[in-house]
Every structure is written in C-alpha cells, then in structure tokens.
C-alpha cells in the first residue's frame, strides 16, 4: 500500500514515516502543508493520504479542504484524516460529500501501528473509518428518553460498529455471528430509530452519525 503523509510537525512526520515503513507500508512522500500535499498526490498517485487536519498557513481546517480536493480530483486515492480534536462535526464534515474511502482518526491512536495500519487498509478498501472515541462520545451522551433506549445491548453494539464504518461482513467476523443475524439486527436498529436502511455502508455511516448528533 502506497502512502503519502501530510503533517506539519517534523518530529511527528518522521515518526509516522518510520512507523508505517516498519509496518510494511510504502511511504512514497511526506510534506508539511496543503499545497505540498496536493502536489505530492498529483505526482505519486498514492493509494492513501494520511493528513493532519490542522496545517499551515491558517492551522484551521486545511486537512478537511485537502481531503475534499483529493477525493474530488483523485477518486482512487483514499484519505485518512488525523486530528487531535474529539469533534464529531469534523467527522461529519469529512464524510459529507465523499463518504467512501475517507476516515477520521484521533492522533493519539496512531502510535499503535496495528490500529493505524488497520484504518489505512480499510479506507483503501473503500470503507469509511470513524474513530471509536467519537462514536463512543456520541452514543454515551446524555439525552432525553428516545428510540435509542429501546435498542437491545447487542443492537447498540452493532449501531456503534456501523457508526465506526464497519461493513456487515466485518461486523459478523468481529462479533462471531452469522451474516443473517447481523442483517436482522441492522434492520431492527434502523426500524427502531426510524431511519431508511441504505445498502451503501458509507452512506449508512452518515445517516447514523447524523442521527446520533441530532
């Protein structure tokens, strides 16, 4: 898997480069800002871009802009956004236009090369990835009584996994249950929440996130 890295802090950029190289990824380039990233992607046509959300010049949402531009111009290149903000709004902004092959991962998780590698491989495979901490915060927020309270323990678990971007196949593998059982759980969740079930996994993530954020 060919990766480019966009991260303005040199120490972190070099660390990530080494870490990914050791985990068997082919790091084809690394840069520190948005124009550099766009250039690098155009030059190397990587499988995935690992992008810090805040970069020079303004240190606000360059990563988000970069992700949108890359997904628009290079549909073959997946984007995994790195952020130190536990903000679900960044995740929804990222998925808004191009939910497939996009991911939002908290930076404090990247030191674990298994987690990082797994997330990279999933976005390359076309899935979308939402950091579990974001989903946990959304699921765990205090809210007035509503349809969420009617879900069973297992249904909540499956809702969480769907929000993190997992497909039905991955869910049945992770939970060691049959595909048929997963499907019936998913259908039940959508019915209880009053959502239309989408066959597309990444669209499904958007719908679930939107529901949880509301």
């Amino acid at each position: 898997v060919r990766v480019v890295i966009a991260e303005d802090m040199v120490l972190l950029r070099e660390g990530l480069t080494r870490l990914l190289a050791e985990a068997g990824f082919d790091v084809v380039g690394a840069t520190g800002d948005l124009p550099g990233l766009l250039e690098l992607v155009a030059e190397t046509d990587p499988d995935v871009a690992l992008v810090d959300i805040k970069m020079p010049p303004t240190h606000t949402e360059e990563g988000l802009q970069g992700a949108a531009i890359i997904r628009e111009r290079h549909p073959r290149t997946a984007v995994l956004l790195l952020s130190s903000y536990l903000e679900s709004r960044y995740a929804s902004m990222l998925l808004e236009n191009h939910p497939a092959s996009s991911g939002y991962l908290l930076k404090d998780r990247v030191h674990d090369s298994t987690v990082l590698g797994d997330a990279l491989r999933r976005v390359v495979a076309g899935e979308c990835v939402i950091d579990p901490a974001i989903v946990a915060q959304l699921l765990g927020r205090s809210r007035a009584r509503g349809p969420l309270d009617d879900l069973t323990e297992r249904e909540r678990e499956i809702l969480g996994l769907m929000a993190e971007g997992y497909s039905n196949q991955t869910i049945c593998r992770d939970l060691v249950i049959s595909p048929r059982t997963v499907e019936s759980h998913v259908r039940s969740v959508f019915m209880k929440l009053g959502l239309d079930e989408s066959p597309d996994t990444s669209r499904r993530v958007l719908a679930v996130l939107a529901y949880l954020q509301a």
Partner: protein
Amino acid sequence: MVALSAETSRLAAANGETALGGGALWQSILQGAAAVAAVTAGIVLALERRVVACGVLLALTGPAIALIQVPVPDAGTAVLFTAALAGGSLAPALAGAAAMTSPVARFRRLDWLVVGVALATAVVVQGLLPAALFDPPAAGCFGCAHNLVEVHDDLSLYTRLGHSGLILTVVWGVGLALRSGWRWVSAPRVVRLVNAPIVLAGAAIAVVAAIAAIHSLSTSTPGIDSTLRFCWLLQCGLVLVMAFGVVVDGQRARGLTRRMTDDVLAKASDAETLRVTIAASIGDPSLTLVFLRDDGALIAADGSNIAETNSVGAVVRVNRTDSEIAEIWYDTRFVGASYQLVAVVRAAGLAIEHLAANARLLAELDDLAASRLRIIAAGDAERRRLERDLHDGAQQRLIALQIMLQIVGSHGSPELTDKYEAARREISTALEELRDLAHGIHPAALTDGGLGEGLRSLSETSPVPLIVDGSRTSRHPIDAEAAAYRLVADTVSSAGKLTTASVVTVTLGESEDMLRLRLRAEGVDASTGDDIMSRALDRIVALDGSITVEETDEATIIEAVIPCGS
C-alpha cells in the same frame, strides 16, 4: 486726551473763526465730549470685548477730533501747528474705518480696499504730503507757527493735493458708507441689532465727509464756511452715537445675563434645553455645546467622544478655576454678537459647570465599561491561545513521543516492550486529560464553528441532556458568542450537579445586532438559577446585555440578551 481737548477748546474759543468747529461753548463741549467718548468706547471695545481693530480705530478717533478743533493759523506752538496741519482730516476716516471693522461680517478684499483708501487719503494725501509741502510764510501766513515737517515749498502742488484729497474723500466716503451698510444689512438679526449704532453712525460719518468734500470742491473760495462747520459738528454728534451704542450694548448684555440666569435656572436642566436656550439668544440653531475632559478631549453631554473637526468656526470657551470645561461652537456669521453670547454663557455658567461634570462622569463610566470589556476580551483571547497552544504544542509532542516509544520498543527485548507499552498507555491517559482540559478552557468548535457548533459540541459532552433549538450557522462577534456559550456551559454543568435536573433546552433567537438566549432548565431550582445568573452577569453586562431569571413550577428559565453591535 482730556488735557489736549481742553487746550484745543481754549484755542478754538479764542479764535472761533479759524477753528472748524467754531469757538462757542456748546460747540467746544460737543467736540470735547465726542473725543472723550470715542477714546473711552474704543478702549472698552478693544480690551473688554475683544473687538480690537474696531476699538483701536475708534479710540484713535478721539485725539483726531481734538486735533481738528485746533484753529490752524492760530495754533500757538510749532508742535500743535504741525499736528493740526498733518492730522486735520483724520477723524472722519478713522471713525468710518471703525464702522467697517465692526465684526458684522467677514472682512473681504473690497473692505480692505475701502478702508485702505480712506486711511491713505487722510494720512498721506490730506496729511503728511501737503504738510511737507506747506511753507506758512510763503502761503502768506506770517502769524503761523513753524512747520516741523516741511521739506519743500510748493504751493501749487499743495493746492492740487488738496483738490485730489477732496475727490478721494468723496470716493471713500461713498464707498465706505455703501460697504459697511451692505455688510450690516446682510448680517443676522442679532448681529445687526448689536452693531447698529457703530456701523450706521460710522457710515453716516463717511457720507457727511463725502458731502463736505463735494461742498468744498464746488465753492471757489477755500476756508471754513457754515456748511463745513455744520458737517463737522454733525460728525461729532455721530461719533457720540457710536460711543453711546457701546454703552447700550454693555447694558443690554448685563440685562441678558440677568434674564438668562433666571431662564437657565428655571428650565435648562438638561444639555439640549440649555443648548437650545443659548442658541436662541443669538439665533444660531447650529450652535453646539461641547465639554472637555481633563486631558482636553472633547465630549458630548452624554460622555461620548467628539471629533474636533465638527467645529463650525467660532468658539466661546468656558473656564472654571484655571481650566477650560466647555466650548460653545457657533457659526462665524454670529461673531458680531459674541459679546452677547458671552453674556448668556456667563449666566449659564453654573448649569454648564454642572453638565460638564456630569459629562465627564459619563465619559469615565464609558471608559470603565470599555476597560471591563477589554479585560474580558483579553481573557477570552488568552483562553483561545492557551487552547491552541495545548493542542498544537504539548499534545503534538506527546503524540510524537508515543510514536518514538513504539518504534524504539518494537526493537527491544520482550520485557522492555512491556515497559514501553505501559509508558505509551500513560501518555494516552495524559493526552485524554489534556484534551479535556483544552476543551474546557475554550472549545475549538466555538472558535472555528461559532455558537451553533459550540453548543452542539457541548451537547455531546454535557452531563445533562442539552437540546439546542434550531441549529444556526451565522457568526457573531466572538465576545458575544463566548458570553452566550459560557452561560449555557455553566447552566448544564450546574444542572449536572443536581440530582433533580433533567433537561436543558436552549432557544437561540438571533438577529443582526442581537443575540437572544432562552434557557429552560428543568428541575433546576431558582437559587441555582440565581447563582448562574450572577456568574454570567459581569460578562453580559460588559457587553451591554441583560439577563433575567424566572422560576416556574418545573423549571428555571434564564433569558439573556446580548447586543452584537460592532
């Protein structure tokens, strides 16, 4: 002056036929009185009323009148003879010039020209030049005293100069009368009223001077006849009218002060009423009353700052105990009535002093409010900076450290790997705490996304359900957004500490210049509501906003209004 007048009167009485004004007692008294009155009125004008040019010219008219009384052929001493010879035509020109310089209108180039011709005619053409050419014995006057300024004896040139002087006198006499009359007519009413005696009598003196000159030109025999004598005595009477006008003005100003004192005390309790009252006294509706702070900065009655360029032209300064406390700005067209205006302002002194103190106090309150706002804004900016520093600095370094530990650890022995693993977990905990800390200091969602995003982000971490009614995207000034956010954040965290609290609902009502917040906190008691309000009060009041708390059976309702102007 009185001595000169007495001496010339004595001479005139002794040689009545050769003195222009005649030698009779009443004639002497009329001329003497005119001379003394002109000097006195001129001094009063120049020194007390600051009408310097007009005052000086009028004051000089006095000695000039005295000189004309001298019977030239019979002037006893050489000095008096020479002075009478050279200065015999000065008085009407000086009185006319005084009328022209009375401040009824702006002094234009034409006015300079007319005054210049009048004075040049009297001083040079009819004064110094002929005096320099006049030799008394050659002219047949053997009894005359010695001419001190004689340089050359030329009787024919002397005669021609006298002729030219008369023609020029007709010119300036008519010109000066027309100009000063026009200036007077085009002035505002109050200015006309105040300056009528000086200007009109002065213009009349110029007309009489022209008539006398025409008379002299038309009679073949030079010398003093009854027409010239009548003209001169009439001019003296007119000078008395001018001086009388100055006295009347003083009286009128004093009366105005008295009347205004009662007026001001009776009704001018506020600045606008006082301004209108003062403005009405001279009839200038554009008149403005401004106050001064200790540093000289100009403020309005409500304490707001005023740009100096607003000044319309003329200014009356109001001083109290060595420092200027107020200024009255008025149209320059009314400068001619400045003495009246000063009288009115004197009457309003106490009221102005009171209003000035009030305005200064209000300005200081404004300063205080602005400084409170600056302190809060600076605090918020510092919070934002701190949040960013934690995220971009400490957090990034910890993450880099984690990655390095991972890289180093993966190459070491198994027990070392465990130790590195434990260290990484510690760092993870530190990172979580750091993130919570940064979020608590100032949420990034509020900075980047505005109040709507900030509240939505808050609702994901709130200890009690927080429902935000209507998601808004419009941005407001960061101070206002921060104040609103903190009120909501404080409400949910206070509610979170109560076991009775159930749901907090925020309804945002936004407009261009106002942010309205309605918080309904169910199960929150009134005393908690009061605590929330008192903590938010400083911030919201600093922004000129307001906050109220109301308790119903099930909920406490907090309502805040925050202006977002500028």
